[in-house]
């Protein structure tokens, strides 16, 4: 208390302290039991093994990782060599593609001609 207690306050406090100290044996025993029950509960939760919490936490982290992966798949750029191979594959599988390759024509000439046209 910030101020000095008055005589009346001191007297009431002394009486209440006296009354609290007069609790009967049964009540005291029940209070002790209540205290021990609360402390047992605290000790049980403190004794819980670490993996009891780490397993659910790990599972939650895995689920979160999957959700993020599915929601935002990382954009992968195809390398230039792969793009070129795909072009060549399309050329070979295209029904309208020139059939000179099969006929053993001068492929190098057509490559040179293509380069000249692009430049």
């Amino acid at each position: 208390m910030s101020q000095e207690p008055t005589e009346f306050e001191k007297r009431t406090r002394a009486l209440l302290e006296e009354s609290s100290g007069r609790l009967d044996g049964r009540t005291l025993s029940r209070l002790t039991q209540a205290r021990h029950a609360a402390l047992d509960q605290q000790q049980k939760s403190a004794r819980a093994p670490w993996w009891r919490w780490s397993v659910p936490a790990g599972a939650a982290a895995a689920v979160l990782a999957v959700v993020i992966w599915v929601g935002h798949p990382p954009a992968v750029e195809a390398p230039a060599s792969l793009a070129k191979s795909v072009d060549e594959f399309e050329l070979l599988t295209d029904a309208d593609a020139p059939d000179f390759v099969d006929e053993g024509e001068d492929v190098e000439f057509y490559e040179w001609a293509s380069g000249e046209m692009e430049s």
Partner: protein
Amino acid sequence: MTAFVTLAGVYNMPVLAGERSREQDLMTSRALEQFLASVEKRAFKIAQLGLRNDEDALDAVQDAMMKLVQSYASRGSDEWRPLFYRILANRIHDLQRRRTVRGRVMAWLPIREAEDDEEFDPIAQAPSPEASPMRRLELDEAIGALEAALQDLPPRQQQAFLLRNLEGLDVSETASAMGCSEGSVKTHYFRALESLRARLGEVI
């Protein structure tokens, strides 16, 4: 030798950390036990005056102990007192409200609850041998008058008075325990004091 020491250090690290954690838990447990033992009698008295029933008061104190240990054991021990009394005050309030509702329902029913179904225990009820019979009688009368006057106070005044006067909480801690402003605590306490002084000034 160095390699041995290094390896021993590496392999001992988790064991030491575990021991330290267990030691910490043990210290918290001891501190909690000391705290609960230091407040339980006054807490019971506060609950008893608020609820006017020993069984309900014991339940309220036990619930408050459980809740404190379950939810706030990791808080600093200096925070436990206001937190404990906040929980207790809420529990008392809940029980008072439940009793009011039950009272309304029971008023419509012709059945009355048995109140004194417990056996009288002469040892438990035996008076303490320290005080003389006359002194004890005076104390009994004064305590009876004070407790009757406290029970007639409005709940918030009663709570403010008991937390400050009996438990010795300061205004700030009382405000925290009651969930109100410091100004309200001062007002409730002042009014409680005035009522008690007016009623008991000559008696105690």
